[in-house]
């Protein structure tokens, strides 16, 4: 440790840090710490001028480690890693210490305490830096081909866009017919184009595109390899299997619709149907609407069926999400109904109307065409009576809870999307599932189509309820991420992954059981079986570390020695 040459730089951040922390005291406190050969302050360490000066210090003082005490690493970790690299210092020998968000800003009422805390934080950063080795990113060559699972609208659109970017797309569909849900829908909002016609035009383009291979009646059987170079095994038809090499995988497996319980809103009655069934009914014939052999003159729509549920005895696993598209879809169905037969009375029993953005115009149109909207409270939902004349009772909160009885020829349950059961695929791809049951992205805002499985992206309604345009937008986002990954020809991965001390390891298998990514394999070392990490598969979360009975595992950047040294550094400052 004493041979290290570490430079420590403390940032004023204008006054964001120095107004609440005595930065000169921090600098002085750490200037003689073991391993430290230089300590300086800068008004803004992130400024070009400060970076130029720090790079010069790295070169002049032959620094082999760098600690910058400034803001959260979320802001400038990569800025300073890149600066280190430009100065010829291994970027992983840089340690950022957060003395702004987690110190000065949280302790604006206590300068003495904040300064003491900042000193301890910097000492801990120095202790970590002393034990930080030089690391290299993991470079993986990529195959310019992608597998897309699910040939609904998101999958079709992904395949076309990838092929046009020069990436061969293998598009697989479990069903014999591609097109997914959209292929069966009638007139779509807002343009009025029919679902089958939209899908047919996409399929025609797919057929003409040489860069797409479409497999129907095909499922993914196995996946091995890693980001940039996966080997996937497909089962086509009854028994044929095909092996392919792809650099990335886009999952567009879609959704299922909520299936009401038989007892839910009288769903066991033939004249109580779901919105999807009603939309199919609207596709048939012209003029007066016929259903089940009778003419429909009064329709009652009940919204939020199977959505926004709360846990109760009868509903132990609720669908808590709002599917968002269903309000607009029901209102669109009502407009189509009005246009076919203006004499049909339509009653919308809703909790909240979510016709966001330009779909608000559809809501206006439905109101103008005569649709009547009645709002109910979730605690007192409408009741459907199926004995004799079909009728619905609702307490309308817009008229102070007045009870209204509606005779109806048809009750339409406006159901939303639910996650599609797909255990086999989840198991093969190790896809993370969110608490709502849909596939989970890394970050909903910052990394919305990436998963923790590097090289596997999600798009469309397998991720969350979406409209068609939102599905296509997310598909195109996944395409751009895939192209960004594969067009470069190689990918660089973070080297902060697990490592095994082969001398300590006795291959007890506990680590492989703890690792959900298949990143640990058994190898022979000096005549004994030991665990070995496959760096490209390891996520570096460290689940394998505490389960090892021999303390043979560590994660780079978070090793036992580093964490212990950080605790010791805190402890030393606490004792002062």
């Amino acid at each position: 440790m004493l041979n290290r040459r570490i430079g420590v730089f403390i940032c004023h951040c204008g006054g964001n840090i120095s107004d609440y922390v005595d930065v000169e005291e921090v600098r002085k406190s750490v200037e003689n710490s073991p391993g430290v050969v230089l300590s300086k302050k800068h008004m803004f360490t992130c400024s070009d001028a400060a970076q130029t000066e720090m790079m010069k210090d790295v070169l002049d003082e032959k620094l082999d480690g760098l600690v910058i005490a400034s803001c959260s690493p979320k802001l400038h970790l990569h800025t300073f890693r890149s600066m280190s690299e430009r100065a010829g210092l291994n970027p992983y020998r840089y340690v950022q210490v957060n003395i702004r968000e987690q110190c000065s800003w949280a302790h604006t009422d206590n300068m003495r305490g904040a300064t003491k805390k900042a000193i301890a934080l910097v000492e801990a950063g120095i202790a970590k830096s002393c034990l930080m080795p030089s690391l290299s990113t993991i470079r993986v060559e990529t195959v310019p081909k992608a597998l897309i699972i699910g040939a609904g609208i998101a999958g079709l659109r992904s395949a076309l866009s990838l092929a046009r970017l020069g990436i061969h797309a293998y598009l697989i569909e479990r069903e014999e017919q591609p097109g997914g849900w959209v292929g069966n829908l009638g007139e779509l909002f807002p343009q009025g184009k029919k679902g089958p016609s939209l899908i047919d035009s996409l399929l025609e383009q797919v057929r003409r595109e040489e860069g797409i291979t479409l497999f129907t009646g095909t499922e993914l059987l196995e996946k091995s390899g890693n980001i940039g170079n996966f080997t996937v095994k497909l089962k086509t038809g009854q028994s044929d299997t095909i092996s392919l090499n792809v650099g990335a995988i886009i999952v567009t497996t879609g959704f299922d619709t909520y299936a009401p319980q038989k007892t839910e809103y009288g769903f066991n009655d033939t004249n109580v149907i779901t919105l999807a069934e009603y939309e199919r009914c609207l596709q048939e014939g012209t003029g007066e609407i016929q259903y089940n052999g009778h003419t429909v003159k009064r329709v009652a729509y009940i919204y939020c069926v199977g959505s926004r549920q709360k846990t109760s005895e009868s509903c132990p696993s609720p669908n808590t999400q709002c599917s968002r598209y269903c309000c607009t879809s029901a209102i669109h169905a009502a407009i189509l109904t009005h246009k076919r037969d203006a004499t049909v009375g339509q009653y919308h029993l809703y909790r909240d109307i979510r016709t966001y953005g330009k779909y608000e115009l559809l809501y206006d149109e439905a109101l103008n065409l005569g649709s009547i909207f009645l709002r109910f409270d979730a605690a007192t939902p409408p009741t459907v009576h199926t004995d004799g004349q079909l009728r619905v009772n609702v307490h309308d909160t817009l008229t102070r809870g007045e009870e209204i009885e509606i005779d109806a020829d048809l009750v339409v349950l406006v159901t939303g999307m639910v996650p599609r059961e797909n255990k086999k695929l989840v198991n093969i791809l190790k896809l993370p599932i969110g608490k709502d049951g849909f596939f989970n992205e890394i970050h909903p805002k910052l990394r919305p189509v990436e998963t923790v499985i590097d090289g596997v992206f999600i798009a469309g309604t397998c991720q969350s309820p979406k409209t068609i345009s939102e599905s296509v937008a997310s598909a195109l986002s996944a395409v751009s991420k895939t192209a960004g990954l594969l067009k470069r020809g190689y990918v660089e991965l973070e080297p902060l992954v697990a490592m095994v001390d082969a001398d300590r390891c006795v291959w007890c298998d506990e680590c492989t059981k703890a690792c959900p990514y298949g990143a640990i394999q058994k190898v022979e070392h000096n005549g004994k079986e030991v665990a070995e990490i496959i760096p490209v598969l390891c996520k570096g979360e460290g689940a394998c570390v505490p389960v090892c009975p021999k303390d043979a595992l560590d994660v780079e950047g978070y090793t036992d020695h580093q964490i212990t040294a950080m605790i010791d550094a805190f402890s030393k400052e606490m004792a002062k």
Partner: protein
Amino acid sequence: MSIAAKKDDAPHILVFSTNNISDPGIDMAGSAHMHYSTQVQVISVPCSSGIKPTWVLHALESGFDGVFIAADGTDCAYLPDCTTRTGVLVKKTQDLLKEHGRSPKRLRMAAVCSVCSESFVSHMANFQKDIVKIASD
């Protein structure tokens, strides 16, 4: 007493926080200038499932009065069963603390998400209060 000379005698807490989920929550508390004790120190790790029980013991033996694991909960992007795994670790660690004559109550775990700034501050205050009680028992 002036702000500059304010004394903080609250128990020393070491927080193990996660890079992607709880760290942004703790950062947010600072960004909103929500005050908590200066005796709280944070070490960031990738995931709470990777915290070694010996780290907790070492922290308590080195002068910290309590260790708080700010876990990802169900938001963990690495492991869907992160909460269960961390729960098992906490149990294992508490057993280790008992073996070493330390109160298992000195270790606490709670989910702190990326927007859980208020709850983090309140967890710190409550934990410090509870540690004072443990010490006086």
